[in-house]
Protein backbone atom coordinates (compact mmCIF):
# COMPACT_ATOMS: atom_id res chain seq x y z
CA UNK A 1 0.00 0.00 0.00
CA UNK A 2 1.36 3.41 -0.96
CA UNK A 3 1.87 6.17 1.53
CA UNK A 4 -0.72 8.27 -0.33
CA UNK A 5 -3.26 5.47 -0.07
CA UNK A 6 -2.60 5.13 3.64
CA UNK A 7 -3.05 8.89 4.04
CA UNK A 8 -6.32 8.71 2.12
CA UNK A 9 -7.64 5.92 4.33
CA UNK A 10 -6.68 7.69 7.52
CA UNK A 11 -8.17 10.99 6.36
CA UNK A 12 -11.41 9.15 5.62
CA UNK A 13 -11.33 7.42 8.96
CA UNK A 14 -10.69 10.63 10.86
CA UNK A 15 -13.28 12.71 9.00
CA UNK A 16 -15.80 14.13 11.41
CA UNK A 17 -19.52 13.85 11.14
CA UNK A 18 -21.35 16.91 12.35
CA UNK A 19 -22.01 16.62 16.04
CA UNK A 20 -24.80 18.22 18.00
CA UNK A 21 -23.26 17.16 21.25
CA UNK A 22 -23.95 19.70 23.97
CA UNK A 23 -21.64 20.68 26.77
CA UNK A 24 -22.44 19.45 30.30
CA UNK A 25 -24.30 22.06 32.34
CA UNK A 26 -21.78 21.97 35.22
CA UNK A 27 -19.05 22.89 32.76
CA UNK A 28 -21.10 25.83 31.50
CA UNK A 29 -21.74 26.88 35.08
CA UNK A 30 -18.04 26.93 35.95
CA UNK A 31 -17.15 28.76 32.74
CA UNK A 32 -19.86 31.35 33.37
CA UNK A 33 -18.60 32.03 36.89
CA UNK A 34 -15.04 32.33 35.57
CA UNK A 35 -16.05 34.77 32.82
CA UNK A 36 -18.06 36.91 35.23
CA UNK A 37 -15.05 37.11 37.55
CA UNK A 38 -12.93 38.14 34.60
CA UNK A 39 -15.45 40.85 33.72
CA UNK A 40 -15.42 42.09 37.30
CA UNK A 41 -11.66 42.56 37.13
CA UNK A 42 -12.22 45.38 34.65
CA UNK A 43 -14.91 47.13 36.70
CA UNK A 44 -18.41 46.49 37.99
CA UNK A 45 -20.97 44.48 36.08
CA UNK A 46 -23.95 46.23 34.53
CA UNK A 47 -26.57 46.85 37.19
CA UNK A 48 -29.63 44.68 37.53
CA UNK A 49 -31.72 47.63 36.33
CA UNK A 50 -29.79 47.60 33.06
CA UNK A 51 -30.43 43.87 32.64
CA UNK A 52 -34.14 44.37 33.21
CA UNK A 53 -34.24 47.33 30.82
CA UNK A 54 -32.54 45.15 28.20
CA UNK A 55 -35.42 42.73 28.53
CA UNK A 56 -33.79 40.02 30.62
CA UNK A 57 -35.58 38.29 33.45
CA UNK A 58 -33.94 38.28 36.86
CA UNK A 59 -34.29 35.70 39.61
CA UNK A 60 -36.28 36.24 42.78
CA UNK A 61 -33.20 37.13 44.82
CA UNK A 62 -31.98 39.60 42.24
CA UNK A 63 -35.49 41.06 42.09
CA UNK A 64 -35.35 41.82 45.82
CA UNK A 65 -32.16 43.77 45.30
CA UNK A 66 -33.39 45.44 42.14
CA UNK A 67 -36.53 46.89 43.75
CA UNK A 68 -34.73 47.90 46.95
CA UNK A 69 -34.28 51.65 47.45
CA UNK A 70 -30.54 51.50 46.99
CA UNK A 71 -28.17 53.18 44.56
CA UNK A 72 -27.20 51.78 41.19
CA UNK A 73 -23.80 50.73 42.50
CA UNK A 74 -25.40 48.36 45.01
CA UNK A 75 -27.06 46.53 42.14
CA UNK A 76 -23.86 45.65 40.32
CA UNK A 77 -22.25 42.84 42.40
CA UNK A 78 -22.41 39.25 41.19
CA UNK A 79 -25.07 38.04 43.60
CA UNK A 80 -24.80 34.46 42.37
CA UNK A 81 -21.42 34.33 44.08
CA UNK A 82 -23.21 33.78 47.42
CA UNK A 83 -26.06 31.67 46.03
CA UNK A 84 -26.39 27.95 46.65
CA UNK A 85 -27.65 27.50 43.08
CA UNK A 86 -24.24 28.41 41.69
CA UNK A 87 -22.44 25.98 43.99
CA UNK A 88 -24.81 23.14 43.15
CA UNK A 89 -24.74 23.88 39.44
CA UNK A 90 -20.96 23.96 39.30
CA UNK A 91 -20.77 20.49 40.84
CA UNK A 92 -23.66 18.63 39.29
CA UNK A 93 -25.17 18.30 35.83
CA UNK A 94 -28.64 17.93 37.21
CA UNK A 95 -28.74 20.12 40.30
CA UNK A 96 -31.95 20.52 42.30
CA UNK A 97 -32.44 24.17 41.43
CA UNK A 98 -35.55 25.54 39.82
CA UNK A 99 -35.57 29.36 40.15
CA UNK A 100 -36.92 31.21 37.14
CA UNK A 101 -34.37 33.35 35.33
CA UNK A 102 -31.45 31.81 37.20
CA UNK A 103 -28.62 31.42 34.65
CA UNK A 104 -27.48 28.20 36.30
CA UNK A 105 -30.95 26.71 35.93
CA UNK A 106 -30.94 27.73 32.25
CA UNK A 107 -27.65 25.88 31.70
CA UNK A 108 -29.31 22.76 33.08
CA UNK A 109 -32.29 23.19 30.76
CA UNK A 110 -30.42 24.10 27.59
Amino acid at each position, binding site marked *: *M*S*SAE*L*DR*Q*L*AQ*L*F*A*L*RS*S*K*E*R*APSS*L*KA*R*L*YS*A*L*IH*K*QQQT*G*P*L*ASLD*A*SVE*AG*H*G*ICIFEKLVQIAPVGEQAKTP*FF*CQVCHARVLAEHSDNPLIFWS*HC*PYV*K*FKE*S
Partner: protein
Amino acid sequence: MAAKIPIQPGQAPEFVSDERRLVASVLGKDRKATAEFVDQCTDWMYPFLRRRLVARPDVMEDILQEILLAAWQALPTYRGDSSLQSWILGIARHKIDDYYRKRIREDVISEEEEDSAPEPAMAPNLEQQLDSAAQQEKVQQILSSLPETYALALIWRYRDEKSVREMAEVSGKTEKAMERLLARAREDFRRRWNDVER
Protein backbone atom coordinates in the same frame (compact mmCIF):
# COMPACT_ATOMS: atom_id res chain seq x y z
CA MET B 1 -18.86 49.86 26.09
CA ALA B 2 -21.00 49.72 22.98
CA ALA B 3 -20.09 47.47 20.08
CA LYS B 4 -20.62 48.78 16.57
CA ILE B 5 -20.95 45.81 14.28
CA PRO B 6 -21.89 46.41 10.65
CA ILE B 7 -24.24 44.01 8.88
CA GLN B 8 -22.47 42.34 5.98
CA PRO B 9 -24.09 41.43 2.67
CA GLY B 10 -25.56 37.95 2.69
CA GLN B 11 -26.20 37.81 6.41
CA ALA B 12 -29.76 37.37 7.61
CA PRO B 13 -30.70 40.67 9.30
CA GLU B 14 -32.52 39.09 12.28
CA PHE B 15 -29.65 36.70 12.91
CA VAL B 16 -27.03 39.42 12.72
CA SER B 17 -29.12 41.74 14.77
CA ASP B 18 -29.45 39.11 17.51
CA GLU B 19 -25.71 38.52 17.54
CA ARG B 20 -25.00 42.24 17.53
CA ARG B 21 -27.29 42.72 20.46
CA LEU B 22 -25.72 39.84 22.33
CA VAL B 23 -22.16 41.03 21.71
CA ALA B 24 -22.98 44.59 22.70
CA SER B 25 -24.63 43.39 25.91
CA VAL B 26 -21.72 41.11 26.82
CA LEU B 27 -19.33 44.00 26.24
CA GLY B 28 -21.58 46.06 28.50
CA LYS B 29 -21.09 43.32 31.11
CA ASP B 30 -24.73 42.39 31.33
CA ARG B 31 -24.69 39.22 33.43
CA LYS B 32 -27.72 37.69 31.71
CA ALA B 33 -26.33 38.28 28.23
CA THR B 34 -23.03 36.87 29.43
CA ALA B 35 -24.83 33.69 30.52
CA GLU B 36 -26.40 33.39 27.07
CA PHE B 37 -23.01 33.97 25.47
CA VAL B 38 -21.39 31.25 27.60
CA ASP B 39 -24.28 28.87 26.91
CA GLN B 40 -23.99 29.26 23.13
CA CYS B 41 -20.22 29.42 22.87
CA THR B 42 -19.69 26.39 25.06
CA ASP B 43 -22.06 24.31 22.96
CA TRP B 44 -20.18 25.37 19.84
CA MET B 45 -16.74 24.69 21.26
CA TYR B 46 -17.42 21.52 23.21
CA PRO B 47 -17.77 19.00 20.33
CA PHE B 48 -14.94 20.72 18.46
CA LEU B 49 -12.55 20.37 21.39
CA ARG B 50 -13.73 16.96 22.51
CA ARG B 51 -12.79 15.47 19.15
CA ARG B 52 -9.41 17.15 19.23
CA LEU B 53 -8.43 16.56 22.82
CA VAL B 54 -9.48 12.95 22.95
CA ALA B 55 -6.05 12.04 24.29
CA ARG B 56 -6.23 14.62 27.06
CA PRO B 57 -9.80 15.14 28.30
CA ASP B 58 -8.33 16.42 31.56
CA VAL B 59 -7.08 19.63 29.92
CA MET B 60 -10.31 20.35 28.10
CA GLU B 61 -11.90 22.59 30.72
CA ASP B 62 -8.75 24.68 31.10
CA ILE B 63 -8.53 25.17 27.34
CA LEU B 64 -12.24 25.95 27.06
CA GLN B 65 -11.86 28.57 29.75
CA GLU B 66 -8.79 30.00 28.08
CA ILE B 67 -10.69 30.29 24.78
CA LEU B 68 -13.71 31.88 26.41
CA LEU B 69 -11.62 34.47 28.25
CA ALA B 70 -9.64 35.19 25.08
CA ALA B 71 -12.91 35.61 23.18
CA TRP B 72 -14.21 38.04 25.79
CA GLN B 73 -11.01 40.05 25.57
CA ALA B 74 -11.12 40.08 21.78
CA LEU B 75 -14.85 40.75 21.55
CA PRO B 76 -14.40 44.51 20.89
CA THR B 77 -12.64 43.52 17.66
CA TYR B 78 -15.48 41.28 16.47
CA ARG B 79 -16.77 43.04 13.37
CA GLY B 80 -19.64 40.77 12.48
CA ASP B 81 -18.29 39.87 9.04
CA SER B 82 -18.61 36.20 9.98
CA SER B 83 -21.02 34.53 12.34
CA LEU B 84 -20.18 34.62 16.02
CA GLN B 85 -19.87 30.83 15.89
CA SER B 86 -17.21 30.94 13.16
CA TRP B 87 -15.39 33.67 15.00
CA ILE B 88 -15.34 31.73 18.27
CA LEU B 89 -14.29 28.52 16.54
CA GLY B 90 -11.48 30.44 14.85
CA ILE B 91 -10.15 31.40 18.28
CA ALA B 92 -10.59 27.80 19.43
CA ARG B 93 -8.65 26.55 16.41
CA HIS B 94 -5.74 28.86 17.24
CA LYS B 95 -5.69 27.75 20.86
CA ILE B 96 -5.75 24.11 19.87
CA ASP B 97 -2.89 24.69 17.42
CA ASP B 98 -0.94 26.36 20.24
CA TYR B 99 -1.56 23.38 22.47
CA TYR B 100 -0.54 20.86 19.79
CA ARG B 101 2.56 22.88 18.92
CA LYS B 102 3.63 23.03 22.56
CA ARG B 103 3.06 19.34 23.24
CA ILE B 104 4.65 18.11 20.02
CA ARG B 105 7.60 20.45 20.46
CA GLU B 106 8.16 18.96 23.90
CA ASP B 107 8.21 15.47 22.47
CA VAL B 108 11.91 14.69 22.30
CA ILE B 109 12.91 12.19 19.64
CA SER B 110 16.46 10.98 19.84
CA GLU B 111 18.34 10.38 16.60
CA GLU B 112 18.61 6.69 17.46
CA GLU B 113 14.88 6.52 17.95
CA GLU B 114 14.34 8.36 14.68
CA ASP B 115 16.49 5.91 12.79
CA SER B 116 14.60 2.95 14.13
CA ALA B 117 11.20 4.43 13.37
CA PRO B 118 8.97 2.13 11.32
CA GLU B 119 8.19 2.86 7.72
CA PRO B 120 4.74 4.33 7.25
CA ALA B 121 3.41 2.20 4.42
CA MET B 122 2.62 -0.96 6.31
CA ALA B 123 -0.54 -2.78 5.38
CA PRO B 124 -2.91 -1.10 7.80
CA ASN B 125 -6.11 -3.06 7.30
CA LEU B 126 -8.05 0.02 8.31
CA GLU B 127 -11.00 -0.42 6.01
CA GLN B 128 -13.36 -2.71 7.80
CA GLN B 129 -17.04 -3.20 7.58
CA LEU B 130 -18.02 -0.98 10.43
CA ASP B 131 -20.90 1.43 10.28
CA SER B 132 -19.94 5.04 10.51
CA ALA B 133 -20.90 5.52 14.16
CA ALA B 134 -19.06 2.42 15.30
CA GLN B 135 -16.06 3.46 13.27
CA GLN B 136 -16.03 6.92 14.83
CA GLU B 137 -16.33 5.36 18.26
CA LYS B 138 -13.44 3.03 17.56
CA VAL B 139 -11.26 5.86 16.26
CA GLN B 140 -11.97 7.90 19.39
CA GLN B 141 -11.31 4.92 21.65
CA ILE B 142 -7.96 4.21 20.03
CA LEU B 143 -6.92 7.84 19.97
CA SER B 144 -7.61 8.14 23.67
CA SER B 145 -5.37 5.13 24.36
CA LEU B 146 -2.42 6.34 22.25
CA PRO B 147 0.50 8.30 23.71
CA GLU B 148 -0.61 11.93 23.68
CA THR B 149 1.79 13.20 21.02
CA TYR B 150 0.85 10.36 18.68
CA ALA B 151 -2.83 11.16 19.02
CA LEU B 152 -2.24 14.89 18.58
CA ALA B 153 -0.07 14.34 15.51
CA LEU B 154 -2.70 12.10 13.87
CA ILE B 155 -5.55 14.47 14.67
CA TRP B 156 -3.57 17.45 13.46
CA ARG B 157 -2.67 15.69 10.21
CA TYR B 158 -5.88 13.83 9.38
CA ARG B 159 -8.67 15.65 11.19
CA ASP B 160 -7.41 19.21 10.83
CA GLU B 161 -5.79 18.40 7.47
CA LYS B 162 -2.48 20.08 8.21
CA SER B 163 0.37 19.27 5.85
CA VAL B 164 3.52 17.71 7.26
CA ARG B 165 5.37 20.89 6.33
CA GLU B 166 2.91 23.06 8.25
CA MET B 167 3.11 20.78 11.26
CA ALA B 168 6.89 20.89 11.16
CA GLU B 169 7.00 24.66 10.83
CA VAL B 170 4.53 25.30 13.61
CA SER B 171 6.07 22.82 16.04
CA GLY B 172 9.67 23.82 15.29
CA LYS B 173 10.64 20.31 14.17
CA THR B 174 12.13 19.21 10.88
CA GLU B 175 9.84 17.68 8.26
CA LYS B 176 11.80 14.46 8.62
CA ALA B 177 11.22 14.36 12.36
CA MET B 178 7.53 15.08 11.83
CA GLU B 179 7.25 12.32 9.22
CA ARG B 180 8.81 9.90 11.66
CA LEU B 181 6.56 10.96 14.48
CA LEU B 182 3.60 10.42 12.15
CA ALA B 183 4.95 7.06 11.00
CA ARG B 184 5.22 5.84 14.59
CA ALA B 185 1.80 7.23 15.38
CA ARG B 186 0.22 5.54 12.34
CA GLU B 187 1.89 2.26 13.17
CA ASP B 188 0.71 2.37 16.78
CA PHE B 189 -2.78 3.33 15.63
CA ARG B 190 -2.86 0.51 13.07
CA ARG B 191 -1.67 -2.04 15.63
CA ARG B 192 -4.31 -1.00 18.16
CA TRP B 193 -6.98 -0.92 15.45
CA ASN B 194 -6.23 -4.53 14.56
CA ASP B 195 -5.91 -5.55 18.23
CA VAL B 196 -9.34 -4.16 19.05
CA GLU B 197 -10.73 -6.18 16.18
CA ARG B 198 -9.39 -9.47 17.54
